């Protein structure tokens, strides 16, 4: 079913997708003319496929559960923020705070993501085919952040137990973030993510793994950055 945001207002479109008519067996939707609107496809909670044809604004696919959402364009701040499950695939670039605080699901960004990608992520898996900006993975708690390009300043600052895999250069590491050994189990996990994101041209072995030195877990007077 095609939903035209030039004809329907955003609230109607979101309402329709959030409250699917279960009697109808309709699970495939295309949204046209998104024109940078905010909060498109926020709060979806059923299995369905949604394709958005064009660029969107802030908080697209926020709080997603179960839905499979593809954006054929760029996304604004906070795409898939607080996602619980499902899959969000951005075919263009993402603005800042992509996947912020998300608990689960898979977020794939084909282009670059700007600053604070995966900030405070709590279990989501994020695959960025391009590069990420500064303070990515800031205070991230759990999940995996995979970046095929470079990472900006202060990567993984004050992180807890997120695994960060970077293929390119890291401008600098944030407080308590260190490079860690890539074990076989990490390689196998990474291979699975690369496969899920349909990345064939990069080998898992070409990535480096980063994680927490766990020195900020307990208060120490001489912790400083």
């Amino acid at each position, binding site marked *: 079913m095609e939903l035209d945001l030039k004809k329907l207002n955003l609230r109607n479109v979101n309402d329709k997708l959030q409250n699917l008519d279960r009697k109808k067996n309709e699970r495939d939707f295309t949204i046209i003319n998104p024109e*940078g609107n905010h909060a498109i496809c926020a709060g979806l909670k059923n299995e369905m496929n949604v394709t958005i044809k064009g660029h969107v604004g802030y908080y697209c696919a926020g709080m997603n559960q179960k839905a499979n959402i593809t954006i054929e364009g760029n996304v604004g701040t906070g795409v898939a923020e607080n996602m619980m499950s499902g899959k969000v695939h951005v075919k263009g670039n993402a603005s800042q705070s992509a996947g912020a605080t998300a608990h689960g699901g898979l977020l794939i960004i084909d282009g670059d993501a700007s600053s604070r990608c995966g900030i405070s992520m709590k279990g989501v898996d994020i695959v960025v085919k391009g590069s990420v900006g500064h303070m990515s993975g800031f205070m991230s708690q759990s999940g995996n952040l995979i970046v095929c390009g470079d990472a900006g300043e202060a990567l993984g600052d004050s992180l807890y137990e997120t695994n960060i895999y970077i293929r390119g250069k890291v401008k600098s590491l944030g407080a308590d973030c260190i490079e860690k050994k890539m074990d076989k189990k990490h390689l196998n996990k990474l291979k699975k993510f690369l496969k899920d994101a349909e990345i064939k041209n990069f080998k898992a072995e070409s990535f480096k793994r980063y994680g927490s030195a766990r020195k900020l877990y307990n208060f120490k007077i001489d912790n400083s950055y």
Partner: protein
Amino acid sequence: MCGIVGIYLKNKKLNNSLGSLLAEMLINMGSRGPDSAGFAIYNDEKGEKLKYSICINNLDYENFKKELSEYLDDADIRKNSDHVILKTKKKANDVLKILKDHFKNTSLVGYGKSIEIFKQVGSPNEVVKKFNLNNYSGTHAIGHTRMATESAITTDGSHPYSTGEDECLVHNGSLSNHNNLRRKLKKKGINFDSENDTEVAAGYISNHLANKKNLKETLNDGLRDLDGFYTFITGTRNGFAVLRDEIACKPAVIAETNDYVAIASEFQAMAHLPGVNNAKIFEPEPGVVYSWGS
């Protein structure tokens, strides 16, 4: 919050639609700044005369015109709502002095060979209609929608700020060291009309440019001297530049095609631009100066 927009045309065929392109951008940014709006248009006029954009507030236009002609015999005045555009061959310093000494109830919002500035309190939609922005043509333009945070909702508090010939600045964010910087710049002879932080940044840029620094050098120095949150768009006679602070909390997105470069706080401000869906769209990196034209 505040919304900022700018468009620089590469294809001259679009010059006649500059006003209408910018108008839509401003209206779409009304959600970020509902209390005042303003815009600066550069129209590449070739002449010796300088143009002065003056807000005459509640003064009677005919009286103002008559009084002004007593001081300026070649005054060529055009009215647009509560603003007037004055053209004269007289030296800038003399004109500025006349306005300051004899027309205290007016505000000079900018001057230059190419620039015209209009700004007023009200929703962007109202402001755009009031000044008939749709009818303007030109080479590049910058606009602002304001949600006031640190100084009063007045004409003087709205953007763009212009503190030098054909220069202007719009700002989304807030500066934390503007009082100190204002004091320093005042000592160097720069005048300020408001308590606004952005006006200080505009004065800073003008002071640098007056000291023969180019726009790129100026903005790079700004990274060191201006403390706070900002995305700036600054316009000059032949181009414009964009700068975000290094923390980059304030948004910006750039869309570039063969015909134009557009910048806005949010993509929705640009969704109507011709061919935008195939444009190169990217977010300016923090602490990096982007400039077009010269």
